C-alpha cells in the first residue's frame, strides 16, 4: 500500500490528490476494524488452554506482533517509507535485540558448581 502522494502546490491539481487520499482512507478504516477484531481474538484465545502457559504466551505475543505490524506498516506508513527511516529502525532493532539477547545469555550462564 503506497502512501498518498504529497499535495501539489498547484491548486488546480488539488482535486485529483484529494481523490487519491480518499482511496487510502478506506484502507485505514479497514485496518482499524482488523485491529479491533484481533483484540477480541487475543482476549478469547487467552481463555483457551493451549496445554502450556508458554504456548499461550507465544500465541498472544504472535497476535500482538501482527497487530503492531499493522499499525506500523499502515498507520505509520512504514510499508512505503524512505530508505533512511528503514536504516534507523534496522539499527535500533538490532540493538534492542542485542540488549535482550545478551542480558538473557548472561542470566543463564552463571557457573554451576556441584
Amino acid at each position: 500500500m503506497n502512501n498518498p502522494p504529497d499535495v501539489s502546490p498547484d491548486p488546480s491539481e488539488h482535486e485529483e490528490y484529494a481523490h487519491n487520499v480518499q482511496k487510502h482512507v478506506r484502507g485505514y478504516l479497514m485496518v482499524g476494524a482488523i485491529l479491533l477484531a484481533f483484540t477480541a481474538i487475543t482476549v478469547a484465545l487467552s481463555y483457551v488452554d493451549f496445554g502450556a502457559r508458554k504456548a499461550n504466551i507465544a500465541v498472544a505475543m504472535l497476535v500482538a506482533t501482527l497487530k503492531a505490524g499493522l499499525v506500523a506498516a499502515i498507520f505509520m506508513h512504514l510499508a512505503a517509507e524512505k530508505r533512511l527511516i528503514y536504516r534507523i529502525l534496522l539499527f535500533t532493532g538490532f540493538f534492542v535485540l542485542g540488549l535482550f539477547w545478551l542480558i538473557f545469555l548472561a542470566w543463564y550462564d552463571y557457573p554451576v558448581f556441584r
Partner: protein
Amino acid sequence: MDAATSLETHPHAAEHEHHELGWWRKYIFSTDHKVIGIQYGFTGLIFLFFGFSLMMLMRWQLAYPGQALPEIGKFLPHIFGPNTMPDGKMTPDFYNSLGAMHGTIMVFLGIVPLAFAAFGNFVVPLQIGAPDMAFPKVNMASYWAVFVGGIVMLTSFFVPGGAAKSGWTSYVPLAAVADTGPGHLPIFNGQTLWLIGFIFLITSSLLGAINFIATIIQLRAKGLTWMRLPFFVWAQFVTAFLLLLAFPPLEAGIIMQLMDRVAATSFFMPAGLVVNGAAMQISGGGSPLLWQHLFWFLAHPEVYVLILPGMGIVAEILANNSRKPLWGYKSLVFSVLTIGFLSFIVWAHHMWLTGMGSAVSAFFQTTTLIISIPSVIILSAFFISLWGGSIRFTVPMLFATAFLPMFGIGGLTGIPLAFNSADLYLHDTYYVIAHFHYIVAPGTIFALFAGIYYWFPKATGRKMNNFWGKVHFWPTLICMNVIFLPMFLQGMLGMHRRWYDGGQGWTLSGEHVWGLTGFQWNTPISWAAWIMGLAQIPFIINFFWSIKHGKKVNDNPWEATTLEWTAPSPPPHGNFITAPIAYRGPYEYSLPGRDRDYTMQNEPVEPSERVRRKTAEPVLV
C-alpha cells in the same frame, strides 16, 4: 519556528524574523545554535571546574587521611553542612559523596555538555554550511534540560545527608538503601535527587542527539556529500547515535531505581536482605545484576561519547597544523562507525567479576578486543598524517599532539582489563582509575582545550594569547602524568579505588614500589593535582581577557579549509550570507601547483585540476 520556517511558501513571512530580538531572547532563551553552544560551553566549563574542585578535596583526604584540611576545611562545613567535614576532617560519607559526584559531574555535566553539546552546537552547523540546527526550539529545550539537571545535582549537596554517595555507577542495593531512614527526607535526599537530575540530563542528551542527527542528515550544504564531511562531523554523528540509543535503557533503569526508592518496589532487590541488622520489608524478586546490565549498556557507549568528539577535534587540528590532509580519511570514517556499532555489545566487560560463565565472558572478551582495533586504526592514521607535514606548533596543536600519546597510554592499558583473567586482579584498583583518566583527562580534556583555543577566533573574532596558552600547556601536561602514572603502580600493588583512607590501613599499600610505598605515592599525586589547579589560572584569565581584549583576527586565522571558516567571525544570525556550496573534500592542504597551501571546500574546482584528479568532480545535491 513558524514564521521562520514557512518561508519557502511565503517569502514575505521572513519579515517577521528580522525585527530585533530582546536581550533575553538573544542571549538567554536563544534558539541560535551559536548562542546555545556558548551557553553549553560555559555550563560545561563551570561544572568541569566544580568536578575538579571536588577532586582536589578528595586528594587531600587521600594524601593526609584523617588530618584536618587547613583553612578551607573550617569553611566548608558552612557550605556543605556540619556532618561533612567536622573540624576540617572529612567524614567517610562525604568522601563517598565527593567521589560519586566527581564522576557524575565530570562525565555528564562536564564533558558531555562541552565535547558533544557545546562543540557540536557551535561547530557542526557551521562546518556543514547550515544556517542553524534543524530544530532550534528543541535545541533550546535541551540546553535548559541540562541546566535544570545540573541545578538538581548541585542541590543534592545541600539536603540532609548530602549528595549521592554510592559511586557514579550507583550499584543497587547500596544505592537503594543509601540516604534512607531517619534524618533523610523522602524526595530531597542525595540519591533520589541524583536520579531525578539524571532524568533531566538524559532528556537533554536525547533531544540533543535527535537534533544533531537530523541536522547532519538534512541540512548539509549543497555538494557536501558524506565523504566530504569533516571528520569532526562524523565523530559527532556517531556520538549522537550512541546517546540516542544507549541512554534510554539506562533511563528505564533510572525510573525503576526511582520507583524502588519512592514507591518501595524491588526491581533490583532480591528477597531476604538484612540491612542495619533488620530484615528489609520489600517484596523481593528483583535482581541487582539487572541494574548493572542497564547501567553499563549506557555507560560503555558513554565512554566513547567522551572520546569521539575529542578525536574529531584533534583530527581537525592535526590536519590544519600539519598543513596536509588527514591520512586514510575513509578508514577513519569506517573505524568510527565500527566503534559506534560495537560499543553496544561490549558492556559486560565492566562486570567480569559478577560470576560470569565461560560462554558469555568469551563473547564479551572477544568483542572488547575487536573494538580496540578501530581505535588503533584511528590513532595510527593520526600519527601517519603527521608524516611529511609542515608542522606548526600553535597552542591548539600542542594540546592535540599531546592527546595522541596520552590516549595511547589510556587505550593500551585497557587491553589487560579486557581479559577477564587479568582484570580479575586489576578490577576496581587504581589501575582502572589510571586507565580511564588517561583517556578522559589528558585525552579528552586536552582535546577540549585544543578545540577552545582553535575555535575561539570563530566565536569571538579574537585570538587567545599564545604565550599564556603555552604557560597553560606545559605544566598541565607534566602534572597530568605525575598524577596518573603512579596510579598504575598503586593498582598493581592491589590498592583499590574508593578507599577513604587512601590505603593507609592496609599492609599491602605499605609495600615499596619505585622508592615510595603505595600509600606514600598519594602525596606527590595530590600535590601535582593542586599544582595543576594553579596551572589552570592562566587559562581562565586568558579566556576571559581575550573575549574583550584578544588580538583581532580575520575570518580564517588558521588558514583552514572547512566551511566554518568561510563565515564571518563571529557569524551572524543565519551564519552565512549566501548558502555555501562544497566543491571538494575537507582537507585540501598543500595541493601541488597552488600559491596558497590551503584550498577551501567552497573553492570551485578548476579545469586544470579536473583532468588530474577525477575525484574532485563537484557533486551537487
